[in-house]
Structure formats: C-alpha cells, structure tokens
C-alpha cells in the first residue's frame, strides 16, 4: 500500500468527515482557495464549496468566536490557526467561550468544535512562529487538548476530534507535515483520551508528545548497545492526561523522564510532574526528571535555536544516568 503524507492524512480525516456530515465545515485564513498554509485542506473547496471551506479575513478572535456561535447553534466547525501562535489573538474566545461557556450556561449549549493547526518550534521561524500554546491553554476548563505525532494517529485522532461534542484544541507540528506512513485501510477513529505506548520497556518511563517523540526515539537508537530498556509513551492527550496508562507504566518502571517541547515554566511537564507526585509518589524511586525547552523566546539563529529545545543526545544521557542510578 502507498504511504500517506502527514498533511494528507489530516486532509483525509477532514474530507471523510465532511462527506459524511453536512454540518462539518472549515473556517480560517487561506483554508479555501489557497488550501491551507500546510495544504491540509488543498482543493477541498472545489468539492465542498466556499461556505464549507470558509476563507475568513485575518481576524482570529472574531472568526473563532463565530465558530463558537456556529457550534452553539448546531454546526461542527473546524477552525485552522494558520499558525497556532496566531491564536493568541483568539485567547479570549477560546478560553471564555469555547472552554467555559457550556458550564457557565448550565448545560444550555454544546460547543462541538475543533481548533487545529501547526504548532511547535519549526526551523528558524523566530520566536513568534515557534510557540507551544498547549502550555498556555492547558489551564482552561472545558477544553480537550490533543497533540498528534504520526500520519496514522493524526488521521484517527482528527476524525474523533471532529465527532467529539466538545471543543478540542488539536496540535499538529510544523516539522512533521511531510512524514509518511502506510495508513490502515478504511475508516478508523482513535480515542482522544488515550496515550500511545510507542515502545514497551521496564527501566524508565519516558513521557513525551508531538515532535519530541522523534527526539526520544533517536536517543534510544544510540542507547541500544547499553542494554537499557525504557518505555516510551506518547501522551497524545495533553488534557486530560491519561493517568491510567501513565500509572501502569510507573508501577512497572518507578522512574519518569518527561521530554517536552514547551517551556519549562508552567509547561505540560510541570503539570505532569505535580500530578505524578500527587498520584504515584509511593511508586517513584527517583524524582521526575523534566526535560523542557529553555524559558526564552525561541531564537532565530540555528545554533541558539537547537540549544533551546531538548536534543536527542541530552535525552540519551539522561536515560543512561537515571537507569545507572537504579538500585
């Protein structure tokens, strides 16, 4: 079977759901005629028309609010952040209205919407285009936050996100759009709240998500000869966190390394660490180790940029160190 590119896997998810349900539509900047900044919606406007692939003016807060209003009144909008960072301008609509309105309304309204697009640190894009909003948004009640990482999970997760009756913040990664993979035949859905065990192991639990999954896997290659046996878990769901899978792993390994691309302060790892201490403290043989991006605006210069995010070599050292310290 032919391999499918990451962005096409996302496109298939949208196409399949739009074909099935006329209430599903896409809104955002350049999602229609231009096909999306990473071609996720390429040519869909030809099939579904301009209203279902709604090219909006550059007005993030307002088109996000429009999606909330459309969702409250029965449609299932998918909005694309041309770059997820731009949705800082939509923070109000995402937090107050997508996230909280259902509760505040005492259950009067549902908000079935997906907010998706490219996030993460790219390649020398500068600070503003290299944001990791998952960390900023994780405190908003009522949101689900998902980070996909492979063509296969991207498709199955996006389809589930579109079908979900809640607002889902769906992070893709700028550097992963050209990955290729053979997808399962036919339609499939993946659960939004389940972590993915990437590699089974027993020595240490590595919790990661999005592109850092690949940095972790690269690190493990250099570790093969050292006979360490880590378990690698791709969180997938950043909110809520899948403590069932995480807990099962910790009960086996008793050690945790978090590898994340967001910054250390107030990051996903900070929340994970605190929650792991709350829930599994007795299982731990060592403090949770957090490996995060530096607390700085992502610099443009390539060397400085690579110093900002966690590199495979650092991960390999950390794993070696943690396993060696095992008593």
């Amino acid at each position: 079977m032919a391999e499918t590119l990451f962005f096409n896997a996302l496109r298939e998810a949208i196409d399949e759901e739009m074909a099935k349900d006329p209430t599903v539509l896409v809104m955002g900047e350049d999602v229609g005629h231009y096909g999306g900044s990473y071609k996720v919606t390429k040519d869909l406007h030809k099939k579904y028309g301009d209203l279902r692939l709604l090219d909006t003016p550059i007005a993030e807060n307002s088109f996000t609010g429009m999606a909330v209003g459309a969702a409250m009144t029965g449609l299932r909008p998918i909005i694309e952040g041309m770059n997820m960072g731009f949705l800082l301008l939509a923070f109000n609509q995402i937090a107050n209205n997508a996230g909280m309105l259902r509760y505040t309304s005492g259950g009067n309204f549902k908000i079935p919407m997906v907010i998706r697009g490219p996030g993460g640190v790219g390649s020398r894009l500068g600070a503003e285009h290299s944001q990791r909003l998952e960390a900023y948004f994780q405190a908003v009640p009522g949101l689900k936050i998902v980070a996909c990482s492979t063509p296969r999970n991207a498709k199955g997760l996006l389809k589930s996100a579109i079908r979900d009756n809640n607002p889902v913040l769906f992070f893709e990664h700028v550097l992963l759009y050209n990955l290729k993979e053979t997808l399962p035949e036919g339609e499939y859905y993946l659960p939004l709240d389940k972590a993915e065990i990437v590699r089974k192991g027993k020595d240490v639990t590595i919790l990661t998500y999005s592109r850092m999954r690949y940095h972790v896997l690269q690190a493990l290659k250099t570790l093969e000869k050292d006979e360490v046996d880590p378990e690698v878990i791709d969180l997938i769901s950043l909110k809520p966190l899948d403590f069932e899978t995480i807990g099962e792993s910790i009960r086996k390994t008793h050690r945790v390394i978090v590898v994340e691309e967001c910054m250390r302060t107030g990051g996903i790892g900070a929340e994970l660490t605190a929650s792991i201490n709350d829930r599994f403290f007795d299982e731990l043989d060592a403090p949770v180790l957090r490996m995060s991006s530096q607390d700085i605006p992502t610099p443009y210069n390539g060397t400085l940029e690579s110093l900002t995010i966690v590199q495979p070599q650092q991960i390999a050292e950390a794993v070696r160190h943690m396993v060696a310290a095992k008593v």
Partner: protein
Amino acid sequence: MVQERAFPTFQTAPAQVTRAEGLMLYQDMVLGRFFEDKCAEMYYRGKMFGFVHLYNGQEAVSTGVIRAMRPGEDYVCSTYRDHVHALSCGVPAREVMAELFGKATGCSKGRGGSMHLFSEPHRLLGGFAFIGEGIPVATGAAFQSKYRREVMGDENADQVTAAFFGDGTTNNGQFFECLNMAALWKLPILFVVENNKWAIGMAHDRATSQPEIYKKASVFGMPGYEVDGMDVLAVRGIAQEAVARARAGEGPTLIECLTYRFRGHSLADPDELRSKAEKEAWLARDPIKKFSAYLTEQNLADQPELKAIEKTIQSVVEDAVQFAIDSPEPDPSELYKYIFAED
C-alpha cells in the same frame, strides 16, 4: 469638556401597532422595569451577588428589537446587562430571578449569574461578561442560518440574530471585524448598539473619535440607522425593517439606539460622574411613560387597563422572587456537571 451630541430629529418611520401589539409591548417594557427595580431591592437585601447591571431606561430597545423578532426561533445575544433581553426573549422571570439568586432552577443552573444568562429553548446565546465577545458569537449564529439554507438546503433556515452591545464596546476590534464579515457574507444579523452615552465612567465622546456610531456602517457597505432609543415604536419600526431585510437574505444592519441608563453602571457604581442635569433630561424621556401616553392618546388603551397590566406584572415579579427563594441551591455533588457535553 467635549461638546454634547445634539439629539437629532429622526428620519425613520415609527411602527404602527394594533391594540394587542401595543399592550404586548407595554407589558414587556413594564416587566423589564419592575424586574430590575426588584433586583436592586434584592441586591441590597443580600439576595444576589457580584456585579449586577440594571437596564432601567433602556427598555424600549430590548422590547422594540426583540419583540419584532420571532420568539424561540430567532437568536439574541446580549452582554452583562442582560436580564431584560432575556425577559423579552421569553425566558420566564422565575428562571432569571432564580439564576440571580444562584439557584439550581435558574436558566443557567446557578452556574452563570447575572452576567451569564443563557437559554437554548429561547434562543438566548448569552450573557457575555467581557466587552465585545458576544458579537462574534452572534455573527456565528447568523452564519449558521445562512449555512443551513445555502449548504444544507434547509428553506426554513431564515432565522435572524440580534446582537446587543453598548457604545463603549464599539471601540473594540471584534465590533469592526464582525461588521466586515457580516457585510461581506450578507449575514442575517442586526447589530444593535445601545448608546447610553457612558461606558462605566468613560463618556462616549471622550473615547470615540467619531461618536456617531451608525455612520460606521457605511464603510462596510451596510445600512446604519440612528434611532430614538427612548421610543419603542421608533425602535420597532427600524427593527422590523432590518429583520425583514435580514430574513430576505439582504444582509446585516447597524442600529444605533440613543438611550440612557437611569441607574449607575452596576449596583456597585456610585454614579458620581453623570451630571444631575443630564440625568434629569433623560428621565423626562422615560420610554415607558412616553409609550403609555401614546397608547392612551391613540385610544389603544386607557389608564385603568395599563394599571391592570402593571399590577399583573408586579405579581409576576413577586412570584419570581418567591420561586427563587423557594428553589434549591445547586447540588454540591454536581460541581463538575456541565464541563463537558457528556456531563
């Protein structure tokens, strides 16, 4: 000080009403007024909490617009000054009062409070406490009507949405962004500005380079009207026209209603900045008194009839208070209910 905007002579034709319509409008305005007076009383008695923004003086706008729409079908989007919009939409006074008391029987189940009234059955989209954030939501509801009609082929999808907001809010980007999109896509929406001259303590003229808000419609290629917001028939006349245009697929209208709030910004506001002369001038234009005089002059009703309506409404409001008092508090075991769609 800035020059005060002269009150214009309006060009718009007021609505003609039958006796039944006249009484319906009167009743709705009186309900708004009595309900708010009761809120002030209950707030000072410690029965309701937080920020409570009353609507006294502006009744002709809520009644004039919402009662020109189809109840339970058309959508209404409000602000934090939302009690009376909710009542005009048909949300029972009991449910609104119970919400203000924080009770489980409130229209938002005690989760929302004064600034977050919602009712799906009455098509009330909120209740938004942040300035301007309801405007995009309303625009989305209007987009939805167009989408259903044009994409899904639903010929009954001719619902119109009205978004209400204040003068101060028209300096927020969401206002301009949504005027653009609504005009661009010819959405069935009314942007109703309740220009009560003040945004808390900020006089409109001190905040706004072009204080005549209705004129801003023209740059978006949208009709804009200014209307006497103290005259329910004037508001109704414009609203009917705008609703008909919206329903016919001819797009949005910006309506600037010149009005005034008879009380402070909220019940926590000492209201020290507005001059006595200004307040008195506007009190003299009380929309309820004005309409009462009209109804009797036109022989559509007589004073005893209007008094009887007031008496009925007084009992509706008393009943709402009793209902709120008797209603249960939300169940603490349901603290997490309504976070997600499945809850």
